[in-house]
Each structure stands twice: as C-alpha cells, then as structure tokens.
C-alpha cells in the first residue's frame, strides 16, 4: 500500500473547501501546523489500495503571503524537508478567475512541486460565459486538466485516480529577470539550492521561514549589499507573469457576455445600495440577535435538563464522599455552565457561516469599512466584532484574515469588550435585582437596561480602539482590497462542518479551563483553616437553636464558606473592592469570575447558600434574587445590592477582562505577553474606574 500526501492549493472562493469535503467524505480533522497556530485541515482516505493524506491549505492568491494564514503555503511548498511537503499539489481554479489561478499554478510548479490543475465549478463554465480550449490550455500548463463540480461529485473519482499518477514533466515557466541573474546564482551557491526560482524566492519573499537564523542573517546581508527590496521583486514578478499570461491565454480563454446584468449585479444593486444596503444589514443583525437569544432558549433548556439528569445520576451512582461531591457539585455543574452556551454559539456560527458561504460577508466588509476606519479598524474587523457577541475566543481567531498587523492587533484587543453570551446570565440576575420592573411607553426598564449593556460593549470596543490607535504604531500601511465573489447558495455540508468544528472547539477549549477552575473553587470553598471552619456546625446550631433543618443546613454551609479559604480570600480582597461598593461575598464572585464570567452566578448561589441555582428557572431565580435583595452589606449597613452597587457591578462586568480562555487565545494569536497583559490590565483598570465612578455618583 502506497502513501500519498496531497495538497489542495487555490485562491479563495474557488470551492476548495467543498472539494476537500467531498474528497475526504468528512473523515477529517482540524489541528495546527507544527509551531504555528494556522489551522490545518487534514483528511485521510483509502482508495484503490492506496492511502491519501489530503491537506486543505489556506486560500491564497499567490505564494507571496499577505496574511498570517497564507504564510503556511510557501513555508510548506518551499521546503522539501517539511513534513507536509506533498507528493502532489492540486491547484484549483474556477471559471471566472482562471488567469489568477493559473498564475498560482505556475508559481507552484516553478518551485518544482509536482502539481496538476483542476477547474472546479465546471457547471458555471457556460453561465460565466467562458470559452476555453482545454487541449491548448493543457499544453500550456504542461499537465492534464481535471474538471470537477464539488457540489455534485462530478469528476471527483477521476481526480482521485490522478493522485497516484506522476505529474507530467515541467519546464520552468518564469524567467528570472536578467538584471537579477547573477545574484540569483550567488544565492543558489550560498544556500546550496538546486532551483533558480527558489533562489529568486529567497530574494523576493519577505521571510524564508524554514532557513536557520544564521543563514537568514547571511541572506539579509546579501539583500542589503545588492539593495534588493523584496516587494519590488514581487511586483516585477506579478507584472511579468501577467503580461505573459495575457499574451498566451489570448487564444485559449475568452469570455463573452450576453450584455445582460448578471444575477450578482442585480442582487448587489440592493445589498450594497448606499441606503438599503445598510438597512438590510441592520435587519440581518437583528435577526441574528433574535435567533441567538430567542430561538436558542428551548435548546438551552434541553442542555440544562440533560445535565440535571446526568448530575442526579452521578450523585446517586457514585458512593458518597469527596469524589461524589466534587463530581456532582463542581465538575458537572461547571461543564454545564459552559455547555449551556453551545446552542447560542452554534446558532451564531450558523449565521456567520451562511454569510460567508453566500458571499454576503464581503459585502458587509465593503459597507462597514468606512465606519470602522476612523477607529483604526478595518471593514474586515466586522466578522470578529459580530462573533464576539457569542464568544470572544473564536471571534479573536477569525481576526486572522485581516492583513494589516495593526488593524488585526487592534481588533484582537477590543473584541473582548463585545457583550459575549457569558455576560448574559450575570446581567439578567443583576438587572432583575436593581432595575425596577416598570414600563415606560410600553418598554420595560429592564429590557432597556439590557440593551444599554450591549451598546456599552460596542462603545467600549470602539472607544478603546480610538485610544489604542493613537498608541500602536503601524508597521505597514493599511489598505483594503477584497474580492466580492458571485452570490451562491450555501454548501450546507461546509456550513455544517464549520459550525460543528467551531462549536466543539469552543466547548473543549473553554471546558478544560472551567473544569480546572471548578475544582479549585470547590477545594477552596470546601476546606478552611482554623477552629471556626472545623466547628461550624456546633457554632451555627448554638446560635440558631430554633431553626428548621433545611435552613440550618444552609446557614451552616454559608458560615463554612465564610471561613473557608475562599471566604478568607474574599476578606483579603475586600479593601480593593470596597471603594466600588462591594462586600467580601461579591469579592469572591469577582475572584472566581476572573476565570470565567459564567462562574459568578454559581458562586453567588453558593455564597448565599442556596445550592444549585438555575437562572432560567423562575422559582429558583426568585429565591436567589430574594436572598440577594435582603442581603445587607456589613461595611455600609445598606442593602448589598442597591442601584449604586448593582450598576457598579454591571459596569465592572461589562468592561473587565474576566475570561481565562480569552487571555489564552490572545496570547496565542498575538504571540506577545506584552499585549495580552496590556489588554487584561487596561480592561480591568477601566472596569474598576468606571465602576468606582458609577458607585460614588449613584450612592
């Protein structure tokens, strides 16, 4: 049995991912390339007694990367020793932009990578008005050309058969410009390269990621001595190649249009209309919000019921003792706290994925660029900012396709301000506590308050973007150029896989942290130093001789917590949170929610000794609210949750960076502790100041 590594390479919007899904038949996994965070999609199949390892590379227009993800293409194809270096590269194009795909194909072949050419979406050859002389094109490209339609599986079997054939011999296409011949020769000798074109790449690429540090500094010196500017070489190559292609393709490919407007033109008349375009976009946003909050409710109840059932079973099946308590009381509820967001996140990704699949997302980028640019962001920041309403973690990852370093960094830094779904349960509880349940003009104050919290998130993001824009220096000039693909019906398989992967990724990544934090919190809350903790039962019973059993048990739990390690911790930070109007119990809530905001409600219910509280369950919620309402702040003698402390807490939660997963992902994506710490410090500092001002203003 032979083993083949196949690389799928192609421009964005050519249906590469659909083809990958068809080829691998969903037997695929997502990982990372060694040493970098670029997402690697890989599938393994067996056909005709052979094994194929198929990798879907990030979409790119050329082998010169302009965004982070694209760097992996040259890194892999330029280095024969790379573990992903393919036996065969499959370069994919589609009818409307063949020239650009051919250019990429020729670059790949000039690097001496064996490759074949595929024209996907063959059904569109006619509708796009493409006339193509296949025979001549095959001669020109020096390979057989495969026509496929990934949506209907046409041509897929033939393509798989081609995987085992040797690629046809190829004569290098790109002629190194004369004035560079001598230095290319020098590079070849210096770095022991066989191919002229690879040597040219050493000069024209901004970075050669697979060379040793030593060699890179040598390369730098040679480039400086000969005043080589990489970008100029890239431009030269693009112009040269295009010129030749223009000539050669003249009698191979032609387009004729019947003069009628295309469907895409017609749709665009409305969707990017200066007025209606924005109205429709706003309408879609509202629809998404409606879906995320209203449609997800029954699903969330199902998740809760499921976990309630599991928890019950676990408690009854595992023998009583610390293991039972830790699993039933900490781990399962902890995981439930995160699993409950899965419906919301899945719905949000469903919409985002459909917007991307249909081609609408580029229109949103087009419409919004003007409005985000003054904040130092780009139209492309729209995707992370919208996704941030579900969860900052996948949102920050989606910032990768922003080419400009500064705009990308800014987007990553401000996205956590967006009101993520983890803030929602806290907002619900706090708003119910401090905002009167009254109406004005038929609008409930509480609903308005919730709306204001969302607006605050957006203002926080944009406001800090302005501030950071002044501080951060741009390495490169910002620009925007984007392709507006023709509108298509979504490929539902792609949508499904995308939603599944993103949601699962969120569940696993965040789940790990919540898992750890739940255990730590449980240990800190269950054990304590000193006599008071150990003799809690006797002390409380002595104080309340007439109390019934249930209340007594709750009272004991509460007393224990106060004197546990967690309670001590609360007392230690009390001086810090006192200026904001909080007592030690809220302090515990704050500490525990530094791990993840969603822990707050759980901690509060432990602090107020109510056992498990389910905010969706009105009876349980009312009990928690009742306890919180009657709680007296021991420092001020006033109700612990009044308008001033409530608003102060709300504002704190709106701005503070209280999510370990986000901190971890920011570190991973920026590859900088500096920016990660600045962001955490800035957000939490801002939260503190704003909460302080609000408390003293309303007190």
């Amino acid at each position: 049995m032979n083993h083949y590594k196949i690389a799928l390479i192609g421009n964005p919007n050519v249906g590469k991912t659909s083809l990958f899904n068809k080829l691998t038949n969903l037997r695929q996994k997502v990982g990372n390339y060694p040493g970098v965070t670029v997402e690697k999609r890989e599938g393994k199949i067996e056909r005709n007694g052979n094994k194929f390892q198929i990798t879907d590379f990030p979409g790119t227009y050329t082998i010169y990367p302009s965004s982070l993800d694209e760097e992996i293409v040259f890194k892999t194809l330029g280095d024969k020793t790379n573990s992903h270096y393919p036996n065969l590269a499959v370069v994919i194009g589609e009818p409307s932009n063949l020239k650009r795909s051919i250019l990429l194909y020729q670059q790949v072949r000039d690097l001496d990578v064996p490759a074949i050419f595929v024209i996907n979406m063959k059904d569109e050859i006619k509708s796009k008005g493409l006339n193509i002389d296949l025979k001549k094109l095959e001669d020109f490209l020096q390979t057989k050309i495969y026509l496929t339609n990934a949506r209907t599986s046409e041509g897929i079997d033939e393509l798989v058969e081609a995987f085992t054939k040797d690629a046809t011999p190829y004569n290098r296409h790109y002629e190194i410009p004369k004035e560079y011949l001598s230095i290319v020769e020098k590079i070849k000798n210096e770095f022991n390269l066989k191919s002229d074109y690879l040597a040219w790449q050493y000069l024209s690429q901004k970075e050669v990621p697979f060379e040793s540090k030593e060699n890179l500094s040598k390369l730098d010196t040679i480039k400086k001595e000969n005043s080589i500017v990489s970008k100029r070489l890239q431009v030269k190559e693009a112009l040269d190649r295009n010129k030749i292609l223009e000539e050669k393709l003249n009698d191979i490919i032609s387009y004729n249009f019947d003069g009628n407007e295309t469907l895409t033109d017609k749709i665009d008349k409305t969707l990017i209309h200066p007025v209606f375009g924005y109205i429709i976009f706003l309408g879609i946003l509202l629809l998404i919000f409606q879906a995320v909050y209203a449609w997800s409710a029954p699903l969330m109840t199902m998740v809760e019921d499921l976990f309630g059932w599991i928890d019950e079973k676990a408690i009854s099946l595992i023998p009583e003792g610390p293991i039972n308590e830790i699993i039933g009381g900490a781990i399962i509820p902890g995981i439930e706290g995160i699993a409950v967001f899965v419906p919301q996140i899945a719905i949000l990704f469903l919409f985002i994925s459909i917007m991307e699949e249909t081609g609408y997302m580029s229109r949103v980028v087009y419409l919004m660029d003007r409005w985000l640019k003054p904040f130092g962001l780009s139209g492309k920041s729209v995707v992370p900012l919208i996704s941030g309403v579900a969860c900052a973690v996948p949102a920050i990852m989606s910032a990768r396709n922003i080419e400009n370093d500064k705009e990308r960094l800014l987007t990553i830094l401000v996205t956590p301000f967006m009101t993520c779904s983890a803030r929602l349960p806290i907002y619900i509880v706090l708003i119910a506590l401090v905002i009167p349940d009254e109406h004005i003009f038929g609008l409930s104050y509480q609903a308005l308050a919730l709306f204001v919290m969302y607006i605050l998130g957006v203002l926080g993001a944009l406001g800090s973007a302005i501030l950071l824009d002044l501080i951060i220096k741009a390495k490169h000039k910002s620009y925007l150029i984007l392709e507006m693909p023709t509108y298509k019906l979504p490929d539902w398989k792609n949508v499904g896989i995308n939603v599944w992967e993103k949601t699962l990724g969120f569940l696993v990544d965040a789940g790990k942290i919540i898992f750890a934090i739940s255990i730590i919190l449980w240990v800190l809350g269950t054990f304590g130093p000193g006599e008071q903790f150990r003799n809690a039962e006797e002390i409380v019973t002595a104080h309340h001789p007439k109390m019934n059993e249930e209340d007594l048990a709750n009272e004991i739990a509460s007393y224990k917590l106060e004197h546990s390690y967690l309670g001590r911790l609360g007392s230690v930070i009390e001086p810090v949170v006192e200026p904001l109007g909080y007592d030690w119990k809220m302090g515990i809530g704050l500490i525990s929610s530094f791990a993840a905001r969603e822990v707050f409600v759980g901690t509060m219910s432990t602090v107020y000794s109510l056992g498990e509280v389910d905010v969706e369950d009105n009876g349980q919620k009312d009990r928690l609210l009742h306890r919180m309402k009657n709680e007296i702040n021991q420092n001020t003698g006033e109700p612990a949750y009044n308008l001033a402390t409530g608003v102060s807490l709300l504002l704190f939660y709106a701005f503070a960076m209280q999510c370990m997963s986000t901190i971890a992902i920011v570190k991973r994506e920026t590859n900088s502790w500096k920016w990660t710490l600045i962001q955490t410090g800035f957000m939490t500092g801002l939260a503190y100041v704003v909460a302080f001002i609000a408390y003293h203003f309303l007190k």
Partner: protein
Amino acid sequence: MIENYSLKDLKIGEQAVVTGFSTEDIPAKFYEMGFIPGTSLLVKNKAPFGGPICISIISNKSVLALRRNEADKILITKK
C-alpha cells in the same frame, strides 16, 4: 489626449483602462488581484461618505473593492 485621471475620479457606471500608478508604494496584492496596466474596468458602486469603491473587471466580470485612498493612486484613462 493624455488625461490622467485616477480611479477615484470615476463615477458609477464609467469605464476606464488602468495606465499606471502614481506611486511605487502600492501593495503587491493590487497587482496580484488584477490591477495591471491595460486592464479595463467599470465602477460598479461607491460606498457612501467616502467609503470603498467597488469595481468590475471587464474581461471576466470579477468584482473587487478597494478604498478611495488606494484608488487615488491608480491612474486611468476614461473610455
């Protein structure tokens, strides 16, 4: 009749041919995406309040968008 307009000056519906660039400081991506001297294009849409410009490449009807800053650096002759 050498009138050097920039792409920014075109109105919606006007056609033009790219003649060159007013500066060398153009990202390589512009060339790669098809802004090559000799390319015919048509302005399809302009986002309001100085937003990006949406153009259609005549030869294959592919549609691209770019900011006005950059459009200003692309020189054209009107058709």
